[in-house]
Structures are given as C-alpha cells and as structure tokens.
C-alpha cells in the first residue's frame, strides 16, 4: 500500500492567526483516514489545504508542501482549479445547487469540464448516483430539484456530484454533522464501500464515527498534529496523554 498524499511542514494562517503549525502527515491509498480533535483545532483548515480550498477565504495563507502522487499541488505553476477537479470534497452541510435538478447537480462538474455528449453524461450521472447509493431512490425523479430530497439524500447527492468528475481522492469535511443517525450510518457504509476505489480523508468531531469507519486516525490540537496511527491503536492505546484525555472525554 502506498502513500497517496504526503503533507510536509504545512503551515496555514487566517490573517495573523497561525491555524496550522508544521504538519507532517501521509495518507495511504484506498484507506480512510480520520482527522479528529476539538473545535478550533485546525482540522477543517487542514482538510481544506488538501484541495487548495483554504486559500479562497480572504486573508488565508498557506506554506509547505502537499504531495499528491509525488507532485506538489502548491507548486507555483499549478492552477488550484485543476487540483480541485481531481480531488472531490463533501461539505458539512449538504449544499446541492437549489436551482438545478438532481441530474444537473450530478452533471455539473462534467459540464464544467466541457462535456456535452448526452450519452456520456447520462451514463456518468447514473453510475455516480449508484456509487453514492442514491440511484434507486431518485431514478424516476432525476428532473426534480436537488433540494427536494431529504438531508441525508442531499448529502449523498453531493457525494455523487463529487464522484462524477472521477476524482482519486475524496475529502469529507464533517459530512454527517447535519444528519440524523440513520442517514449518518448510510453515509458511513458508503464511505467504506468507496474506499476500494478512492483515498478518503474525513474530518469528524464524532469520535465514534472515526472509530467506526477509519483505518487511520490523526488527532489535532491547537493547530498541531499530536498523534497519528492506526485507528485501533489511537483509540485503544494512545501514546500521548492529550489524545487519551480527548478520547475518553476529559475535554473537547
């Protein structure tokens, strides 16, 4: 198993606030890596550095390297737009485009890439919705608005939208925090299915979720990476005192 993403001495700022400090971390291919930590520890900032979404916020700054398949996505001549096309992202709150149909939501990324062939679009939309475990529920309503779905369905629609552009990596930024337990468990099952083909990074404030779905876990605190290891080890025998304190619920 090889490293898909390698992060080297990554630092990030919001204005003068030093949000991430010297992060070194690797993510393995076809594995789920969870990033946990209390609010404000920099975990969301970190995941947004992996597809260059951090810098869209005014005053945000990044230094360091993020190597994807050995190539630094922060290299000077690289367009962040291209990076975001190969790395999918699913957000905290389901955010389908409200004026688009289910079909158009899924096809949005492909259309941005200039795809016009109706057959390919049809096929990709169907496949992506199947991969996102949503096809059976919406196959007769593809022309309905994306926001006519329930919250959990909307989130799976967003996953389908991310999958449609055939990324190799998918970033999940607290994808279940706005969902009920049943929808949450469907998304978790889905992530486990998806890891066969994709490299997955998930930020979560829900430690049980990290324990359920992930192969590796990284614990962040105050903008620093405190501990990284196999999920089993982190949850059963954490090496650091603060990791243990967080996991057993002494703070956070």
């Amino acid at each position: 198993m090889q490293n898909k993403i390698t992060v080297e001495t990554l630092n990030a700022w919001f204005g003068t606030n030093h949000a991430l400090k010297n992060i070194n971390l690797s993510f393995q291919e076809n594995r789920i890596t969870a990033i946990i930590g209390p609010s404000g520890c920099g975990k969301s900032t970190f995941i947004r550095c992996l597809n260059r979404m951090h810098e869209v916020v005014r005053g945000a700054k990044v230094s360091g390297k993020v190597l994807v398949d050995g190539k630094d996505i922060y290299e000077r001549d690289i367009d962040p737009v291209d990076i975001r096309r190969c790395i999918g992202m699913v957000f905290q709150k389901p955010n389908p485009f409200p004026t688009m149909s289910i079909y158009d939501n899924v096809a949005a990324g492909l259309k941005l890439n200039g795809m016009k062939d109706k057959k390919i679009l049809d096929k990709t939309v169907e496949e992506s919705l199947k991969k996102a475990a949503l096809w059976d529920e919406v196959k007769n309503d593809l022309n309905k608005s994306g926001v006519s779905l329930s919250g959990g369905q909307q989130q799976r629609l967003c996953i389908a939208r991310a999958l449609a552009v055939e990324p190799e990596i998918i970033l999940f930024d607290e994808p279940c925090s706005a969902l009920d337990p049943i929808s949450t468990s469907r998304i978790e099952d889905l992530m486990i299915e998806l890891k066969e083909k994709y490299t997955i990074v998930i930020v979560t404030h829900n430690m049980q979720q990290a324990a359920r779905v992930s192969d590796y876990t990284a614990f962040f605190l105050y903008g620093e990476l405190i501990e990284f290891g196999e999920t089993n080890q982190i949850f059963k025998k954490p090496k650091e005192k603060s990791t243990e304190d967080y996991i057993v619920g002494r703070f956070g």
Partner: protein
Amino acid sequence: MDRPKFRLSKLSGDLIFKTVVGLFAFGIIVLAFLLFRELFIASSLSRNAFGAGFLTTSTWDPVKEVFGALPFIFGTLVSSLLALLIAVPLSLGIAIFLSELAPEKLRTPLSFIIELLAAVPSVIIGLWGIFILAPFIRDYLAPPLSTYLGFLPLFQGPMYGPSMLTGGVILAIMVIPITSSVSKEVIMTVPIQQREAALALGATGWETTRIAVIPYARSGIFGAVILGFGRAVGETMAVTMVIGNSPHISASLFSPSYTMASVIANEFLETAASKLYISSLIEVGFLLLVVSVIINIAARILVWKLLKVERGAA
C-alpha cells in the same frame, strides 16, 4: 413603591402609541385609495368622451380637443425597456464586481458612490443630458449606428439629439444605481457553501458566479430589475428634458418621443381653458399609476413564485 399605578399608566401609554402608529399606517392606505379615487373621478370627462379609444388612438390635439394617449404609453414603455436593455447587463456586472471580486477596501466606497448616483436630482441629470449626452449621441453614437445598422428600422431617419435613444440612455443611468445596489445585496446573501460547492468541483471564479451564485440569486435579481423598471416608468424630469416631447409613434429610436410622465409635467399649466384637456391629462396620470401598480404587483407575484419554488423545494 407604587407599582400598580406605574403599570396602569404604561398600559394606557401603549394603547395610545398603538392607536397613533396604527392610524399612521392606515392613513397610507386611505391616502392611496383617495389618490386612485380622485384620479378616477377627475378623469371621467375624458373617459366618457373617448372610452377605450383613449388607449389605442394617437392623436393628441388640444386645439380640436381630441385626445389619444397611445404615443405616451408607447414612449413610456419603449424608453423604459430600452433603459433596462442597457442598464441590466451593466448593473449585473457592477453587482458581481462589487460582491464577488472587489477587495473590501474598494467595495465600500464604490457601493457608496453608486448609491449616491441615485441621490442626484433628476433635473441635474436632465441638464447633463441636454448639454453633454444628447450632442454626444447625435455626433458619435448615431452616425455609426445608422451606417452599420441602418438597415434596421430602429436606426433610420435623422437624429437631432433629443430622441427615444437619448431618453433610454438617460433612464438607464437613473436605473443603474437601484438595480445594481439591490442586485449586489441579493448576491451577497448567497451562502458561502454554494460558492464552495462550485469551487470544489473545479469551477473558476467566473464559473462559480455563473453556476452557483447567479442562479441562487436569480429571483432577487429579477426583483431588482423590476424595481429599476418601475423607476424608469415613473421618472419624469430628466427624460422630459431629453426625449424630444413629440407625441408620435415611430419605429426609429432616433426620432423624438414623449412619455406619460412628461406630458403631464409639460402640459398641465396649459390646460386651464379646457376641461376636457385637463381631464385627459389626469387620465394619463391615472394610467401611469395603474401601470406602476401593476408592474409592482406583477413583480412581487413573480418573485414570490420563484421564492416559493426554491423554498418549497428546500
């Protein structure tokens, strides 16, 4: 401690306050109703004399006392639509720049200046229109238009300066502040999550605006456009000064025209001798009021419908 008494006086104070402000609010409705009623009654002479023909005939002859308002209705609608045609793309561009692209330091002063433009008295804009804009259009804009697009009836005939085109441009200038500032406010309410959804798919800045921001804000932008249309329809002074004030219907934008608001402003003092003349002008006013109200109601219904589609879906 004298609490019960204190409470009692507070209660009656509340009641007085409620009654007074309630009367104010109700007063507006009464005022609007009386306005309608007054215009309707005062225009009865003209309505009896010309009936529906008032709307469809184009003779306006105070000497023979024959009045038809079609040229004014035509002038108002065409000049306002022309204004929208010019103002909407510009306003959208301004709104997108201010909300999406401009750095914070530039956004606030620029927005302020654009809103100030709305506060310029329309007679000032009219003066500028007469002395600067009309000659400019006559000398620099009309010749190429008639050379290259002269095969269209829109750009045929002589151009003396005051014209439908000049009126439309002046109105566009007056529509831009309101349309752009309302559009900007609307666009700024689009949630950041919508922008991020597009960006994460690999959309460029412009693509994000196109697929995520504008569609989300479209009902509000539509409202802003209709507000601008309302302003153009009701605008009187500036357009009167540059449109040429000639009650004729012509396909050419180069020929002078007349609007409903302008004819009232221009001719009201000349009507003393004829009751039918004044009644006809009042009927034009009544029509203008009705048209304005219909535009506003229609806009609101459409905006509500669009909002309902989006909310109903959400």
